[in-house]
């Protein structure tokens, strides 16, 4: 068994997965559906880049083709970027191969003769560690691994004519208008929770965000129930993942489904009136107090700092 295959419909994720795969010392092959992407990916550590030339624009429709390819090539690992399309493609490929699959790996380490992965379960409370020693499909979310350019190594590009699954066809696509900001890229995040009483009170958070140069995020209820902020603003297992240098919350209790999305923050600070709120267990610095008193004082202190 040899060879690691990599696919993502997200360019940055493809590059990151190629750099990860290159650490294995195995032969690495990038699969793409278009020549341009292959041209751009040549310097990210792949030995080979295989352009699948088929008759569908949908990556998901190539699962069977890719499964057959992996089998023929005796592949040992198929790394797929965890996007909506990537996850479906990955799970179908694993289904066709009747092989194992690790979804949304939080870590992946190449050891001698085996691969060790971890992933989160039960909303982020539990870490499951698995050892892979036969062909397995692994999906990896955005932002876990960095892409590293390797100018000295240039992959060889080839192409393959294939037949896609024609049973699902796109009728139309319309871009989602991104309201607000890209929280995942924010260097500082001020997060509001249901402890805020009225929509006007968001101003308190905005003032703090302004002195910090932070973006505003929230918990699910603020976006999904109260509709005070767009859904892109909520952080957690079903929302955004953030990894700022500072995350500071007000009126956020810190349930695990939310905390999962802030774990990669460098420093977590929390203001909550309940000294037993779980957010304090997840925080580096906590202030037990009324956010309506504390936050304006904090904004003022930072302004003068």
């Amino acid at each position, binding site marked *: 068994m040899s060879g690691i295959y990599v696919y993502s419909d997200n360019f940055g994720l493809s590059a990151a997965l190629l750099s990860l795969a290159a650490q294995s010392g195995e032969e690495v092959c990038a699969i793409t559906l278009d020549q341009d992407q292959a041209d751009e990916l040549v310097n990210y550590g792949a030995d080979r880049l295989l352009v699948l030339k088929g008759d569908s624009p949908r990556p998901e429709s190539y699962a069977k083709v890719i499964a057959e390819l992996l089998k023929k090539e005796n592949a040992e690992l198929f790394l797929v970027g965890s996007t909506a399309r990537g996850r479906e493609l990955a*799970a179908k490929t694993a289904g066709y191969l009747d092989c194992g699959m690790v979804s949304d790996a939080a870590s992946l380490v190449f050891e001698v003769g085996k691969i060790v992965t971890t992933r989160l379960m039960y*909303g982020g*409370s539990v870490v499951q*560690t*698995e*050892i892979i020693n036969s062909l397995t499909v692994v999906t990896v979310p955005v932002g876990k691994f960095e892409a590293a350019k390797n100018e000295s190594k240039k992959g060889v590009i080839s192409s393959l004519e294939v037949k896609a699954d024609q049973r699902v066809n796109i009728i139309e696509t319309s871009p989602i208008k991104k309201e607000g900001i890209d929280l995942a890229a924010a260097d500082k995040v001020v997060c509001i929770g249901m402890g805020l009483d009225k929509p006007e009170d968001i101003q308190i958070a905005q003032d703090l965000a302004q002195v910090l140069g932070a973006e505003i995020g929230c918990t699910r209820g603020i976006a999904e129930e109260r509709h005070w902020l767009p859904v892109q603003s909520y952080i957690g297992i079903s929302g955004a993942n953030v990894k700022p240098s500072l995350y500071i919350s007000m009126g956020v209790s810190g349930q695990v489904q939310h905390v999962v999305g802030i774990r990669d923050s460098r420093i977590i*600070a929390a203001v909550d009136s309940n000294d037993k709120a779980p957010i304090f267990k997840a925080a580096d*610095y906590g202030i037990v107090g009324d956010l309506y008193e*504390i936050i304006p004082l904090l904004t003022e202190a930072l302004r003068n*700092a």
Partner: protein
Amino acid sequence: MAKIIACYKWVADEADLRINADMSVDLSKAKGKISDYDKNAIEAAVQVAKGTGDTAVTLTFGSGKAKQSLKDALSRGPAEGFWINSGSAEKADGAASSKVLAAAIKEMGDYKLILCAEGASDTFARQVGPGIAARLDIPCVSSATGFEVNGNTVTVSRKLEDCVEVVAADLPVVVCVLPEINQPPIPGLKAVLDAGKKPTRELRLEDLGLSETDLAAKTELQGFEAYVMNRKNVILSGDSAADKVKELVANLKKEGII
């Protein structure tokens, strides 16, 4: 009348999960529940069957504990509940679950639509819907926020990272729904009482031509432990609010944040 099959998983309620001092996880006291997102799949099946005149049914792969789920599932509107009863469900990975469910669906026959949630609330691995489709070699449409059946096709809206996509797929098809597709109502008393009278069918692995060895885990499980959050956990203890704030600012400075 064809079957519209909603698959669901009977899971341990994460709210009852206990962490032991050695960071091991104790699920022995956890109550079971139908995985939250699967309620959306069941509701979607019931709604679409009303429109097409087909029969909504549920399907679950679970151990003996899952027996109690049948009444709950049927109180949500489907006409019949199917249950593959096997202890191996407790350890089943995505490959095993989709293999068993696909085999059961074949055995049930005459299906046109299979509805799954994107993922279960315990593992959230998001493998089973597409895995069933691959094993039945039928199309799959995931991330669905809405769909409509017309004759032999289904038209599905999907929410992807940067766009909304509408696709048409040939039936039979597996559709994996996102929670925003609907708001499953809480079943009323009458629905709960009626559920007890609805037919259920228990299947065994042998009925599906499968054995425990077909369901062996594909990866080797090495650890299953509580996530450890390594944080400073400093509660700023100044006398007044102003003092606490001052301490926080000093700490943020020390950390090089400001």
